[in-house]
């Protein structure tokens, strides 16, 4: 899809992240090119969420480098990283429950001054998730889990990101809602959005991904295209529930 000579949008090199003395990410290296969907899969505790939290500045990396769109992100505070075009839809959705749906979406565009374009993006998010328009004035806490996930994704899109990071977008959702969310991600991919996806539904994630990395206890143990990993015997055994 992407010409191989295009410079990566995100370049992570030998990243280590720790909570106190416990190192959760132990030196991972990967890249994301413009227009790609890259997925990190792995069991709970593999370090996927920690990786995303370090990329968005919520956790300081212990060592290693993060280059994003020409900037070095090590130690940059989270609120500045959004401004550079990196949006993070966190695990567990984390919508603002007592603000309305529209207020939540507007917060996604908190740093943007281009009011007209923000309104265009609001229309775009409404087109993507009509329920967010229908229930615009309701407190976000009244939405169902799947609708909250739509809101969290819509909110991340409102910053008009160069890279959209989605952490477990299908977690805890009904199979129908899960399908809907994965379809939306496919739609975003088709529209050219660059996505870094962390997902426990490995089957769905690999089917979408251009590049995929399997994480185990803080390390990347296997990398390949989505299709390669989807047909890899060890991956099928460990993550896709085959004997």
């Amino acid at each position: 899809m992407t010409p191989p000579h295009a410079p990566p949008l995100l370049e992570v090199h030998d990243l280590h992240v720790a909570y106190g003395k416990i190192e959760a990410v132990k030196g991972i290296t990967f890249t994301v090119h413009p227009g790609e969907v890259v997925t990190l899969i792995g069991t709970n505790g593999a370090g996927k969420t920690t990786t995303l939290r370090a990329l968005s500045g919520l956790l300081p990396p212990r060592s290693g480098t993060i280059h994003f769109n020409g900037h070095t992100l090590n130690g940059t505070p989270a609120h500045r990283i959004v401004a550079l075009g990196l949006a993070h839809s966190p695990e567990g959705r984390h919508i603002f429950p007592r603000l309305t749906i529209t207020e939540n979406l507007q917060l996604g565009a908190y740093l943007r001054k281009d009011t007209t374009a923000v309104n265009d993006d609001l229309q775009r998010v409404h087109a993507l998730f009509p329920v967010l328009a229908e229930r615009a004035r309701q407190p976000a806490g009244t939405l169902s889990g799947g609708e909250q996930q739509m809101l969290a994704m819509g909110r991340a899109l409102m910053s008009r990101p160069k890279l959209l990071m989605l952490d477990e977008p299908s977690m805890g959702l009904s199979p129908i809602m899960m399908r809907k969310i994965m379809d939306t991600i496919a739609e975003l991919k088709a529209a050219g959005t660059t996505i870094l996806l962390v997902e426990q539904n490995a089957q769905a994630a690999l089917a979408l991904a251009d590049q995929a990395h399997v994480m185990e206890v803080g390390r990347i143990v296997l990398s390949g295209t989505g299709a390669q990993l989807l047909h890899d015997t060890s991956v099928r055994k460990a993550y896709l529930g085959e004997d």
Partner: protein
Amino acid sequence: MHQLPQQLANGIILGAMYGLIAIGYTMVYGIVQLINFAHGEIFMIGGFGALTVHLALPAATPLLLALPLMIAGGITAAVAIAVTAERFAYRPLRGAPRLAPLITAIGLSIALQQAVWKWYPDAKKARVFPQFTGDSLHLLGATVQRGELFLLIAAPLCMTALGLFVSRTRTGRGMQATAQDPDTARLMGIDTDRIIVIAFTIGAAFAAVAAVAHGLKYGQVDFRMGFITGLKAFTAAVLGGIGNIYGAMLGGLVLGIAEALATGYIDHIPGMAQFGGGSWKDVWAFVLLILVLLLRPQGLLGERVADRA
């Protein structure tokens, strides 16, 4: 004479003062889950800031002209101390166990009292605060002193401005987001450190306005004035539902009115004669707090907050 309109007026005036101070407790708690026990002293320092401006002005300056400058002086002093405390005492402890900033706040409270006692000229005794002269006013069957009128104008103005700020401005929205989920607020591009400073600033400014009102009402300021008043205002914040700005004002008014009514009427209840009057009002205020905590632990306007993941 204990007529009802007078007791209600006394209660509303006292309550509006508690409410203004309670805003500072509730905003800071709502955002950083810190009970800023030094807030009573921020209030006291606001009073001394206003007094300092009064002393610096020519003695013949009419109080009505001096008042805006005194308010500005009080706000400047209170905000300066509050922001410094946040930056150097509380911020380094963010992420520490909750007891650490709480003990820091108590220590700061004592240090600020002692600093004023030691270094402010003649502050070892109460210092005289200027008073409005002239007849008191008669409103709806109650007598209101001219100095008290200040609060009846200032409190609604402050509350309206705060309500508009929080609900209508971008920064106010950012403040609500930070209170609900600080990490996610950062992901939106909100500088949460700045939001915390703004919360301390607003709280200190409102406390300073309350301190000017306190000075005008009682004719004096002293280094201990923040202790019991601060405790009452904290009670008001809990009563109204801590974290909720409208709850803080409502809690203040309920507390003020309850105190006034208890002062005026408890001794009329058969068998309760010895529990009335001003000396028991603090007891009734805290009895009310205990009752609310038993019957409605989240406070009058508080919501049951689910623990954050």
